[in-house]
């Protein structure tokens, strides 16, 4: 089983990358992995890093391969941001790191998982390192699409495009890698629209399946203005609660760790100014993270909701195609009966608008309310 085994449904990308590993003439120092969420940008980049480190070009079982894949390799640095942006200070640290020769491996790999979150100043700081790379340093940047990356950066990278893998390919991965039974694997792969991480979660977590079901049934339940506002409030509350629950324990632990690190006395009624300012900036980071998480949860719910209308449209226009919500065919059929094709398109537009608005910082609840009003039946 080579390092490429988990890079599902990406024959073109894998061919490009294996060639770069075996033929030095096709190797370059900066790569940009693009593809929709869940297509496995980071998985592909890690596999590439492993293949570069491995004496056998990516056997998948040696120490180099294993440590590169799980991110513990001394010469592979994975930058995964939890905040809304990657700041210039972090970028400068990376530039310093990039100038160093690899310590044990053949290459030093710097993998930035969310290159779309580089601030303009952070991107500027990276430019020089990308232009005049150290001889054994490889940059691997990941982003949903090239447009998400500042142009000066992307013009200096070779692009590797990942496509959405087929539901079948994702289901096979779930069966092989995670030992999930076939019917559950195919349900989860379809429902997650081939987003590998989400599919695994749906397959394993009953709570996630129930929540998805609750979300998609909204499509058949909203009739009055009051229903619409109630549904918007439900979606937004669930997202905020989920984000808070995910954060609570980790936030407290981070705070304790920071206090220890600073040698602060946690029993003091007031902290000295420099400690206060560090605590305040941690607090802000944690709030950003919670905000981002709750937006991500809402976005996921909107993808789920959108799938019902896509299915309903498919049913109206093309019968016989496999549905994303194959397991909820009666629900899809009832929506397809209730709304004309034009109304279905309008519903999809409304969901798209809500996502854009939330992305542009509109109050999520308000954006959802306006959307739900457009999703009323009748």
């Amino acid at each position, binding site marked *: 089983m080579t390092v490429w085994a988990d890079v599902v449904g990406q024959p073109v990308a894998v061919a490009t990358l294996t060639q770069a590993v075996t033929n030095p003439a096709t190797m370059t120092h900066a790569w940009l992995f693009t593809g929709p969420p869940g297509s496995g940008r980071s998985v592909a980049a890690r596999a590439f890093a492993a293949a570069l480190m491995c004496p056998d070009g990516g056997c998948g079982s040696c120490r180099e391969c294993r440590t590169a894949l799980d991110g513990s390799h001394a010469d592979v640095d994975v930058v995964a941001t939890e905040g809304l942006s990657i700041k210039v200070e972090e970028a400068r640290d990376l530039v310093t790191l990039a100038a160093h020769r690899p310590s044990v491996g053949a290459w030093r790999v710097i993998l930035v998982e969310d290159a779309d979150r580089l601030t303009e100043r952070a991107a500027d700081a990276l430019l020089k390192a990308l232009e005049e790379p150290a001889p054994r340093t490889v940059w691997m940047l990941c982003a949903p699409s090239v447009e998400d990356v500042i142009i000066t950066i992307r013009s200096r990278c070779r692009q590797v495009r990942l496509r959405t893998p087929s539901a079948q390919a994702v289901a096979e991965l779930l069966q092989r890698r995670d030992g999930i039974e076939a019917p559950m694997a195919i349900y989860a792969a379809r429902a997650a629209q081939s987003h590998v991480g989400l599919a695994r979660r749906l397959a394993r977590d009953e709570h996630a399946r129930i929540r998805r079901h609750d979300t998609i049934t909204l499509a058949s339940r909203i009739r009055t203005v009051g229903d619409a506002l109630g549904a918007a409030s439900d979606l937004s509350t669930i997202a905020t609660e989920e984000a808070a629950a995910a954060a609570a324990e980790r936030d407290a632990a981070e705070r304790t760790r920071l206090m220890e690190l600073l040698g602060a006395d946690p029993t003091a009624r007031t902290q000295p100014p420099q400690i206060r300012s560090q605590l305040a900036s941690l607090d802000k980071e944690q709030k950003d993270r919670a905000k981002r998480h709750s937006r991500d949860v809402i976005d996921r719910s909107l993808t789920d909701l959108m799938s019902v209308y896509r299915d309903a449209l498919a049913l109206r226009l093309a019968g016989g195609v496999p549905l994303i919500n194959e397991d909820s065919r009666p629900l899809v059929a009832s929506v397809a009966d209730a709304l004309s094709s034009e109304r279905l398109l309008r519903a999809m537009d409304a969901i798209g608008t809500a996502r854009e608005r939330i992305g542009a910082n*509109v109050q999520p609840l308000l954006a959802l309310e306006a959307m739900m009003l457009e999703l009323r039946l009748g």
Partner: protein
Amino acid sequence: MAPALPSAYLISGPESVLAERALAHTVHEITVAEPDAEVVRMYAAAYAPGDLGVHASPSLFGGQKVLVVHDADEGSDELIRDLVEVLPAATAGDVRLVVLHKGGPRGKRATDALRAAGARVIDAPAMKSDKDKADFAAHEFRAGGRKATSGAVQALVEAVGRDVRELAAACQQLIADTTGVIDESVVLTYHGGKVEATGFRVADAAMTGDTGEALRLLRHAIAVGVDPVPIVAVLAGQLRQLVKVGSAGRGRSAELARELGMAPWQVDKARRLLSGWSAEALGRCISAVAAADAEVKGGGRDPVYAVERAILTITTEHGAS
């Protein structure tokens, strides 16, 4: 030891203002009864296993100890274990325990044990709804020996109610700085310049269909540098309340208020306004306000015009159906 005081206290709930008050009150109550008592504060984040036991053992000098444990809900397993272990010493009268727990499953073993041992439980529930905040403000004024009209409480919650701490401070300030009955005009003198207060006045004019007054207030606010973002937020909030109350049917205001997490005056106000509104019209207004929010947040070239247009939508929809 004064027999009337309990040996253990549990201050339970997430609202930090209330929890701090309860703690201050408790410590005061104990130290008045026992002037020699020594108060030892411990924080979950800095707890070293065994600390509680060390402090609970009788001191050579015989002074009573009060052990205050903050953030028990963030406590390590050791802290929770030690709390449970030190409880018999408290019930035996060797020490007093005051435990603060914000909620959640962590540390439940200790809070259950405290309750079982007969600790005095003081709740510090989250203040989320405007009703909670209005009750709180009214209580503050009463406790300060002052009379406040319901209009004053309403105006204060609208102006500074977003942050409970700010609300508490505003109440204290009004109690300290004014004399006589606290009415709406007193509150507006102190807090009328707040963005939220402006937003509410704009919204009030818009929702009753008074185009001229709504636009005048808006332009004045913008001219003096008020940010349009919170004004849009208030418009959305007011429309939302109308829909909620309109969909909830009849029933008594007080019950409805509890059910919807609103203050009774808000329910009454919404009901008065609703006579000029249909659900459909409110829906169209909410869509318009959402579009305005998107433009204000950077999607449009002229954010002020975006808010004006939303206000015009509201005044036009008012009474149209």
